[in-house]
């Protein structure tokens, strides 16, 4: 039961994007379509889970003073692995996410979970926490990507819902990212209070 709570908090109560407002750059930058959002979310989830796993294993050996640089090295290692894997197996996604893949290193969620959770908890709990937080992030990105893709180009996961001519192009472009996220946060805030 406790583990379930640990896992599920990332989706709603402590959702990284909608509640904590962490990881805003990839959230806004890659969500021009649902599939990009999902890809970015899953890549971040992988880095989160692996970084949490390794950091919770080595936490007793890291001197207190150099823990942040040590965490960054661990995180950067897994980001490099993800980058190489995506380049090899999903070249199209790799192209469209571009600069934001190496930038997973500076995603505050990853370092935040390492510092706030993995450096204090057991291996099992850290993996569950990373998985919950990462999938919650992926869910938020997919939702935002779906809204923007649907409003902007009339498609959802590349399946046409209504003719593209009626789409509002601005939602696929930069301003639409800010506006769509602003309204989504307002709606989710309202749901949380209800």
């Amino acid at each position, binding site marked *: 039961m406790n583990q379930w709570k640990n896992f599920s908090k990332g989706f709603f109560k402590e959702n990284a994007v909608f509640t904590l407002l962490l990881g805003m750059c990839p959230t806004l930058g890659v969500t021009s379509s649902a599939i990009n959002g999902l890809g970015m979310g899953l890549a971040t989830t992988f880095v989160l889970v692996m970084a949490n796993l390794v950091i919770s294993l080595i936490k007793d050996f890291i001197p207190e003073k150099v823990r942040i*640089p040590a965490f960054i090295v661990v995180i950067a290692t897994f980001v490099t692995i993800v980058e190489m894997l995506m380049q090899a197996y999903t070249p199209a996604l790799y192209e469209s996410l571009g*600069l934001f893949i190496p*930038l997973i290193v*500076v995603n505050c969620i990853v370092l935040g979970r390492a510092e706030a959770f993995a450096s204090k908890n057991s291996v099992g709990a850290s993996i569950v926490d990373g998985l919950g937080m990462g999938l919650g992030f992926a869910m938020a990105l997919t939702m935002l990507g779906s809204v923007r893709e649907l409003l902007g180009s009339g498609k959802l996961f590349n399946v046409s819902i209504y003719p593209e001519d009626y789409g509002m192009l601005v939602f696929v472009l*930069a*301003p639409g*990212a*800010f*506006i769509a996220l602003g309204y989504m946060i307002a709606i989710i*805030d309202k749901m949380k209070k209800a």
Partner: protein
Amino acid sequence: MEYVIIIVSAIFVNNVVLSQFLGICPFLGVSKKLSTGIGMTGAVTFVMIVATLVTWLVQKLILEPFNVTFLQTISFILIIAALVQLVEIVLKKVSPPLYQALGVFLPLITTNCAILGVAILTIQKDFNLIESVVFAAATAVGFGLALVLFAGIREQLDLADVPKGMKGTPIALVVAGLLALAFMGFANLV
């Protein structure tokens, strides 16, 4: 002429915050007041120029000759983290007033994705050393411009009658969206 194109493109056309989505966290975080916005801009400008200079040299003199470019992400982020610490120590010693002004913002800069983003972008765009520094400086000016404009609007927003559900972050994001819309007017300028 080449430099003019780089500068105009980095400040207006491809504004780092409003069209590239880099450095959103400080953009939303420290934009509640104009004065903190200006302080943050100063710190970012300083670190961005130095970081781009150092990472460019490391890429060309170490990573490429030894054929280990896959270490780019790891080495760049470590350089930036170390550099921020160094800048903090040096500033404290050399110029206490400047440290007073920028000090609180420096630790936040390590996780500012604009710094790492610009360092990687200069390599991707294949700039030479001078172009890289010009690009970094212009990007920092673009960041400052967006941040100062946004902070100015947010100060006025406190007095406006905002619907209850939209107060705080949501309305700030919508305002940022409108600002991005305005910056789209610069598209095709260069």
